[in-house]
């Protein structure tokens, strides 16, 4: 019997293992999908934010020649000779273009300096490092300026913290310390704050508007509730651009809302509702309201109405009963809806771009600008990375603060 028993155990184990493998195989498509379309792009985004191959690839000898330089006085003659040698060795124009772009985002003006020098090669000069310096400075006097050399020296390593530092308004100085950029160039920290500020405000307004509506929906009978839910979802199925255009029609100076306000005598001059923060908030709340209402509704549906009645019949005032008995039971819905709206908000791009002014743009607008207009993908990825980590930090804080058993997967 002993032998038969182990046999049985083995068989059981094998069967268990087989069902585990089958279960894993069933989730395999999803896991592959997540890996290919989510984790890999995310990882490559983060890598691009610190990757810095352009200068290291194109100017290896110059980087070596500059390694002992004090970054303040004139760079050594050897660096000039190395630069000429490196530039001559660049085979394809695109590598020179990439080098020029990278140096230019560090030191404005480098683009024309590098490209014009590259195109003028070979510079006619007698052999020797000193002569190389003379020839370069004669070609363009800017080569005498240590600032351009500092840009080369700073970027001659393959990895750089500079994109990330810039994304939080910091920079590395010539002596290697880190300082805040001057106020006139400090843009991103206030943009990040603005992004979170707008998102928080939109979430709060959506909650204030969505909560009573979800409550009302949960008290209706099923047929009417379904009908109303379809009405809630209707804007969901309309393109975002169409809804934005509709808001432009409604909110403009002689639009429906302003004319109504003037007709009612509430205001003499049209209120500025468009192309400013107000317009952005109104449209974003409208677009995101269903994300708030649906989780609230599903939680409220599961709250038994008897509890509230019991509280009132035991002598509680209706309002107190609502706040002390009903509201706490809907917290999971509030948390889920709030988080969903907030996190969706953070990435908003098209609504602020079309309805907001220059001071109402969220971080995604600048990610798009660096991707498409400046074609500085390292900077775009760094901004994306900062947004991602700020969101993750907020999410962790939220998980710590609320004991709600809630996970977004």
């Amino acid at each position, binding site marked *: 019997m002993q032998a038969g028993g182990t046999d049985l155990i083995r068989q059981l184990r094998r069967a268990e293992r087989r069902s585990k493998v089958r279960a894993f195989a069933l989730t395999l498509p999803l896991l592959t999908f997540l890996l290919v379309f989510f984790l890999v792009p995310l990882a490559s985004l983060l890598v691009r934010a610190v990757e810095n191959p352009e200068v290291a690839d194109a100017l290896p000898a110059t980087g070596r020649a500059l390694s002992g330089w004090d970054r303040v006085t004139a760079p050594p003659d050897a660096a000039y000779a190395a630069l000429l040698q490196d530039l001559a060795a660049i085979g394809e124009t695109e590598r020179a273009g990439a080098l020029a772009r990278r140096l230019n985002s560090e030191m404005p003006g480098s683009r024309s300096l590098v490209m014009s020098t590259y195109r003028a090669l070979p510079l006619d000069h007698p052999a020797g490092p000193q002569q190389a310096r003379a020839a370069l400075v004669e070609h363009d006097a800017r080569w005498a300026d240590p600032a351009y050399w500092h840009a080369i020296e700073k970027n001659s390593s393959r990895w750089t913290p500079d994109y990330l530092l810039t994304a939080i308004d910091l920079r590395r100085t010539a002596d290697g310390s880190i300082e805040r950029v001057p106020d006139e160039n400090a843009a991103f920290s206030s943009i990040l704050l603005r992004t979170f500020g707008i998102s928080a405000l939109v979430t709060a307004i959506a909650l204030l508007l969505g909560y009573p509506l979800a409550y009302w929906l949960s008290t209706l009978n099923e047929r009417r509730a379904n009908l109303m839910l379809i009405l809630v979802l209707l804007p969901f199925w309309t393109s975002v651009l169409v809804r934005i255009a509709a808001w432009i029609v409604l909110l403009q100076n002689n639009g429906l809302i302003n004319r109504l306000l003037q007709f009612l005598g509430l205001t003499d001059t049209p209120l500025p509702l468009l192309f400013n923060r107000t317009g952005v908030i109104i449209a974003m709340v409208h677009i995101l309201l269903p994300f708030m209402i649906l989780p609230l509704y599903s939680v409220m549906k599961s709250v038994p109405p008897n509890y509230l009645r019991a509280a009132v019949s035991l002598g509680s005032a209706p309002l107190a009963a609502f706040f002390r008995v009903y509201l706490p039971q809907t917290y999971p819905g509030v948390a889920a809806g709030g988080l969903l709206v907030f996190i969706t908000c953070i990435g908003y791009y098209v609504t602020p771009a079309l309805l907001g002014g220059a001071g109402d743009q969220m971080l995604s607008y600048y990610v798009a600008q660096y991707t498409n207009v400046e074609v500085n*993908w390292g900077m775009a990825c760094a901004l994306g990375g900062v947004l991602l980590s700020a969101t993750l930090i907020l999410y962790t804080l939220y998980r710590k603060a609320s004991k709600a058993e809630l996970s977004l997967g």
Partner: protein
Amino acid sequence: MQLKPTLLALAALATLPALAQNLTVVNFGGANGAAQKRAYFEAYEKSGAGKITQVEYNGEQAKIKAMVEAKKISWDLVEVESPDVNRGCDEGLFEKIDWTKVGNKADFQPAAVHECGVGVFIWSTVMAYNGDKLKDAPTTWADFWDAKKYPGKRGLRKGARYNLEFALMADGVKSADVYKVLATKEGSDRAFRKMTELKPLIQWWEAGAQPPQFLVAGDVAMTTAFSGRIDAAQREGKNLKITWTGGIYDLDYWAIPKGGPNKEAALKFIALASTPDAQAEYARNISYGPTNNKALAQLDAKTLALLPTSPANSKDALQFNIHFWADQGEALEKRFAAWAAQ
């Protein structure tokens, strides 16, 4: 035997794509895209060279960069703005143009001849206002900045480009000196200070269709606008007016993404679209200036008067300096973002 004609037709269909050179041409759409369709695409298709698929984009160079990097080019020919043709050329995104196949360089506007691009048309960013609402025509950028004389909001394009130039001209800098001044630290400080003066009055626009809407709705007293958009509104019967003084003109270019399969056909298309006939037809459809000077001879005085390139309109105009913006653009746009946040 019934099958035979069908089979023949199928065989003919199968061989067609091999003969004809179908092209995917990418432009910015809108009224401009429609004018290109009438003047260029239809002429190309009528010549029997092949069919054209028109794709619209918003100037995102990232798409071209991604295609060239992945060596999967689905866009045969792209209309790009001047800073992009320059940068794309440096970074190897575009094919070099074989000008012997396009035409005689001497016939073209000097700026239209580029190593990697052929000028499509000349457009201008100008000051515009509604003739029904503003009787006293503004004539200079100083007027645009004068909130006492001309109360009301001002429309400006979101971003540093153009606005800093306009601000300097409003501050008394001659159009010929604008880029010299702007290149210095004091000059850019001065431009941003001038922008700050106007800041409370500015209503920002993003898309070229917005300024004429602002003017028609009466939301702004004056705005900057693309000249062709104002022209399109005028054709719809709106009394919108342009002040050409201190306008900034610029070119769009045809560029061929590097490594595409239909390079030769794309060049053939460019050659056809650069003929005086086709360019004159284009200028009749939308008021942008032809790049082939010979096209001007075919246009009547009325059409000429609306073009950014006509002598009266270009007298005090400024050419957009792509080299300046290629060097300083990223830094100034970042400073603009910081300025807007203050």
